[in-house]
């Protein structure tokens, strides 16, 4: 059963040095506040998994928390490069960064295999391309029924999945909707799961029976962090802070500027800054 905890206690109890951690979110509901807490607690030697590493992974990498990234697209969406991730790959700053690279289809299938308790995923992919030459985890099987050669990748089985959801009820079940990405698969594939939520409600009330709901017993810890997905967004709560993504391009270009920004905005702050951003965006978000 999930336990309600402060974000700090949830990270303290569930994320250990050397863990394989999947903080998922496909543009929507990215667990930024939880990522900041991992940085504040100075976790080290992490292997980070994510289909689309963006700003929060850039920050974790730049702060030296990460040994390896498993990913399928790394970038600041619609803006450009992740400068900290590139600096780590191209110049080993602040430390060397190993990486295991896939396609989206491969990772989506690998998460699903992890959730399904299978050892590997099978799909039609990686044909005529170079990734299998540089990523030894990519292999193939021959279909026993048709003879077709199909691509395989190992299942993703993280030590910890961290996601941000919309609501939890008093029993510790969590609900998400909108662009739901691979969060359900990531939680069900992981040994432990931390979920931050916009709010805790008495009861979910009238709802579609097909919403994505993760029962309490699939989750280790739930922490209420309003605005915890900022600068990404939470469906029905606040909009994506596109201006912030553009500013990040400047902030992250330079090592000293990056470190100063992280000190002022992450190390010396707490999860409460996210509530202020939610309030600002909810007010500013009325214009279409």
């Amino acid at each position, binding site marked *: 059963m999930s336990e309600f905890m402060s974000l700090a206690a949830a990270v303290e109890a569930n994320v250990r040095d050397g863990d394989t951690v999947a903080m998922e979110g496909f*543009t*929507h509901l990215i667990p930024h506040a939880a990522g900041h807490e991992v940085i504040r607690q100075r976790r080290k030697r992490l292997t980070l998994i994510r289909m689309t590493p963006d700003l929060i992974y850039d920050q974790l990498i730049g702060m030296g928390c990460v040994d390896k990234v498993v990913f399928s697209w790394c970038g600041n969406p619609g803006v450009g490069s992740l400068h900290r991730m590139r600096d780590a790959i191209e110049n080993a700053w602040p430390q060397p960064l190993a990486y295991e690279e896939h396609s*989206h289809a491969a990772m*989506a299938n690998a998460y699903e295999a992890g959730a399904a308790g299978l050892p590997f995923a099978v799909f039609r*992919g*990686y044909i005529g391309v*170079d990734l299998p030459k540089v990523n030894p985890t990519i292999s193939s099987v021959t279909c026993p029924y048709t003879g077709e050669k199909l691509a395989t990748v190992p299942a993703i089985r993280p030590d910890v999945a961290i996601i941000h959801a919309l609501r939890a009820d008093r029993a510790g079940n969590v609900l998400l909707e909108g662009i*739901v990405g691979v969060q359900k698969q990531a939680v069900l594939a992981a040994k432990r799961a931390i979920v931050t939520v916009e709010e805790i409600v008495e009861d979910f009330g009238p709802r579609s029976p097909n919403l994505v709901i993760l029962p309490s017993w699939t989750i280790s810890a739930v922490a209420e962090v309003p605005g915890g997905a900022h600068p990404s967004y939470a469906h029905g709560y606040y909009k994506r802070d596109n201006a912030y993504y553009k500013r990040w391009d400047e902030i992250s270009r330079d090592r000293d500027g990056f470190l100063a920004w992280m000190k002022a905005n992450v190390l010396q702050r707490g999860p409460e800054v996210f509530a202020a951003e939610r309030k600002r965006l909810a007010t500013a978000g009325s214009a279409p």
Partner: protein
Amino acid sequence: MSENHTSTEMMTVAASRALKSSDVCFVGIGMPSAACNLARLTHAPEITLIYESGTIGTKPSVLPLSIGDGELCDTALCTVSVPEMFRYWLQGGRITVGFLGGAQIDRFANLNTTVVGSYDKPKVRLPGGGGAPEIAISCGEIFIIMTQTRRGFVDKLDFITSIGHGEGGDHRARLGVTTKGPTRLITDLCVFAPDPETKEMTVVSIHPGVTRDQIDGNTGWKVKYARDVATTPVPDPHELAALREIHARTRRAHGDQA
């Protein structure tokens, strides 16, 4: 070049015209997204636009900055999980056109969005493949939109992220791929289509005011031209107005100079 439109506008309009109302289109972010939404707002109102974030039949009023902006979900017919998107809808063969961009392209329309330089010691680390490797083999056909430069149009790719026509000829078929691959490459200078035999991308239409010298000078291989090369029709006022309106709405919505 006409004084009435920019070369980027010409490219986006030419790209949008390649789409039909009956298409189900897997949309890449950036220039493909602009072209696909322009098609929807002009000659192809019934087109189904799909973004890899899981949004099906989306009708955004502003162009998304990211592949998963809330606008895409809010205006979609439905939104599915990312594994469902890649397994049922893409791999399941339900998409007629994939619309891609890239950093580097070769004469057979293979694309590189992974690295410049060697993979282990890259000069420039690019974002990587994302959905492209499987979009390139699972969609009925592929359209590509790219600004034409010598840096981008190269004789040999540093890395093959997604396959076009491979080594040319029947290479796709020999690899067991049954879809058509790239059938249109639209640039700010011209439109390419594959030669029926060799599959080398061949210029079939040149935008008004552009010379063959300009095309050759911006391409890293010796460009082939079709026997009959057309002149791309200029954007009509309706297309230009629709394109400028959606860009203006996008700038207002994103609150900056996007």
